């Protein structure tokens, strides 16, 4: 009896204390910045993209802080270097979770996200992919989600477009032999074949290769109507350059990694006709993108590498704002589980640069914007919904 009364009093006291303490905790938190983690390649062969992604994220942080921060707290970005290497990616994930005590972090590059996924699942920390496109990312576990459309979105739509609109029937698929290339190349092959086309060359190249003559001669012998290259920023221009030098003049398609001004510089006239995908609206589709681009050019004095990816990096902070504000409204602590709940419950997010994001399980679907190179510049070609 005494125990029951005692327990009841203790519970009431605890609840009352907690209720009184909650605003105090929020006030204490208000003084502390809210840390958001982003794993990026800031050195290494992918640093050209990674460094620009970081600038995009910082722009998002500046704007969110200028708009009052997240739930009254200023945002502090914690960006760590992965060099786009899986092992370093695991180290970064451990640092975010073990040292920075973050309940959620963002990451990019397929091989890195795949390596970090077991850590995030084990520690029940939310990992949101914000730039990798391997279809396998949708199957990496309960705590791994994506804000960036996976290859099945742009690659499948592109493959269908090539067959149905461009009328190409024989395609060659050349891809880098890593997580970025392998899955996407299979998707392209399967979609193009299912549409009725024929894949006449399906060839992978070593990620460190600089000489592609043999592979390209195989392609020349097969005489395709179109060539799809699924590589990275460093190797794709070299493959196209050597292709043109060997007399292969077929139209080339690629994905968003090839939507890069440096590629135009390196290839000049050889880039004409190249078709790339973009998973974010362009300057003509969204005036905010034009403002972002003008601001970028003013601050950096140049064009960004991979504008669509940068739009996603910018929006990452606004996505975080939506998640944390959900927790604040529900008075929930920030953990991997509650943030995951917020992501799944809110489901639809209106983001300033990339538009509406609707979560579909572990995937998101978005329109695909096709661009082609005309007179040395990327120009809109079609929008695939």
């Amino acid at each position, binding site marked *: 009896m005494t125990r029951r009364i005692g327990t009841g009093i203790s519970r009431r006291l605890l609840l009352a204390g907690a209720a009184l303490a909650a605003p105090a905790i929020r006030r204490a938190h208000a003084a502390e910045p809210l840390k958001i983690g982003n794993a990026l390649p800031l050195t290494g062969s992918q640093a050209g993209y990674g460094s620009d992604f970081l600038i995009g994220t910082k722009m998002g942080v500046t704007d969110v802080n200028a708009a009052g921060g997240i739930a009254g707290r200023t945002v502090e970005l914690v960006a760590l270097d992965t060099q786009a290497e899986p092992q370093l990616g695991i180290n970064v994930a451990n640092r975010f979770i073990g040292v920075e005590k973050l309940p959620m972090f963002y990451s990019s590059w397929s091989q890195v996200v795949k390596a970090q996924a077991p850590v995030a699942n084990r520690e029940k920390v939310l990992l949101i992919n914000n730039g990798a496109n391997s279809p396998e990312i949708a199957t990496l576990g309960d705590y791994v989600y994506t804000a960036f459309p996976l290859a099945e979105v742009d690659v499948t739509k592109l493959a269908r477009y090539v067959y149905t609109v461009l009328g190409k029937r024989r395609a060659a698929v050349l891809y880098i032999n890593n997580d970025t290339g392998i899955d996407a190349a299979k998707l392209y092959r399967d979609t193009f074949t299912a549409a009725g086309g024929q894949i006449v060359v399906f*060839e992978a*190249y070593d990620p460190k290769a*600089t*000489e592609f*003559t043999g592979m390209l001669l195989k392609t020349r012998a097969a005489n395709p109507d179109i060539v799809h290259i699924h590589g990275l920023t460093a190797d794709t221009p*070299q493959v196209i350059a050597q292709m043109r*030098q060997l*007399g292969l003049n077929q139209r080339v398609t690629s994905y968003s990694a090839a939507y890069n001004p440096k590629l135009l*510089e390196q*290839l000049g006239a050889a880039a004409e006709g190249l078709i790339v995908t973009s998973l974010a609206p362009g300057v003509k589709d969204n005036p905010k993108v034009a403002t972002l681009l003008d601001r970028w050019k003013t601050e950096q004095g140049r064009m960004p590498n991979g504008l669509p990816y940068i739009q996603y990096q910018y929006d990452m902070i606004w996505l975080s704002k939506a998640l944390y504000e959900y927790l604040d409204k529900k008075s929930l602590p920030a953990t991997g589980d509650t943030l995951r709940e917020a992501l799944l419950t809110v489901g639809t997010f209106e983001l300033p640069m990339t538009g509406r994001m609707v979560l579909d399980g572990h995937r998101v679907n978005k329109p695909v914007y096709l661009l082609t190179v005309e007179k040395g510049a990327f120009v809109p070609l079609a929008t695939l919904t």
Partner: protein
Amino acid sequence: MFDPVILAQILWTGIATASPFVLLTAGFALTLKVTGLWNFAQAGLMAIAFYTMFFALNAFGLPVVAAVPLGVVVTSAAALVIEAYGLQVLRERHSGNLTFFIFTLILSEFIIYVLTLAFGTEPQTLFKSILSPVSIIGDIAVSDWDKVAVAMAATGLALLWGFMHGTREGQFLTAVADNAPLAELYGISAIRAYRVTAVIAALFIVAAMYLIGSHGGIVPNTPLELVLTAVIATLLGGIGRVFAAAAAAVFLALIQSFSILFIDSRWQNLLLYGFLFAAILLFPRGVRLIAIRR
């Protein structure tokens, strides 16, 4: 795939692609012949050569005719500093081959580390455009880069041959390579021979890095991969046989190029490692030389 035009194209492109490796191998094998050292510091010199030319062309806006000589001066100076204040000090201390190996490898790693801090790790090319005009000769696509590469390799080897066989300095190098103490008895300076060798190797390195850097992207640690090819070709060619090593570099490139007829292109680089193991296990002359020196 076995069309004669395709086979001829693979042959030509293989030879052109081999050209910078021929130059690197000639410099590496000459150094091994004269000094008796597997000089892995040459990877660091390759990085110095490339980034000097890259900086001169892109930061200073110098023309090629100024950037390449600047590359030669800086790389030669670096090679001489390494020779005089590194390798010669170790020789005077009668250091073992393992010490030389560790010193040259660590030195390369250090140079690459410093260059990474200075230039970052984004792939860089010497020129903004990596395209080279192409002409079709008998159905074979021949780019201007191909012609320059083959011409530079052929000229480099011819000049080296002429130097080694037609000049007293070249004959001194051979004498020091054969027996340094005996050569010194005849008044030939081994130290001078080592320094001349360092400068010749630097010239070959600059030429090779110009070709590689104008054809594709380079990151600071690319030279560590390039030196691997030079090591394998040197082993295959035979220790002390500079021109045979250069021929082995062509052989390796052709094997890699023609392998595409039988294997997937992703496996091409694996062949190099196969040759490395085969050269070490089946061509023991180099290994025996190291054992004797120990």
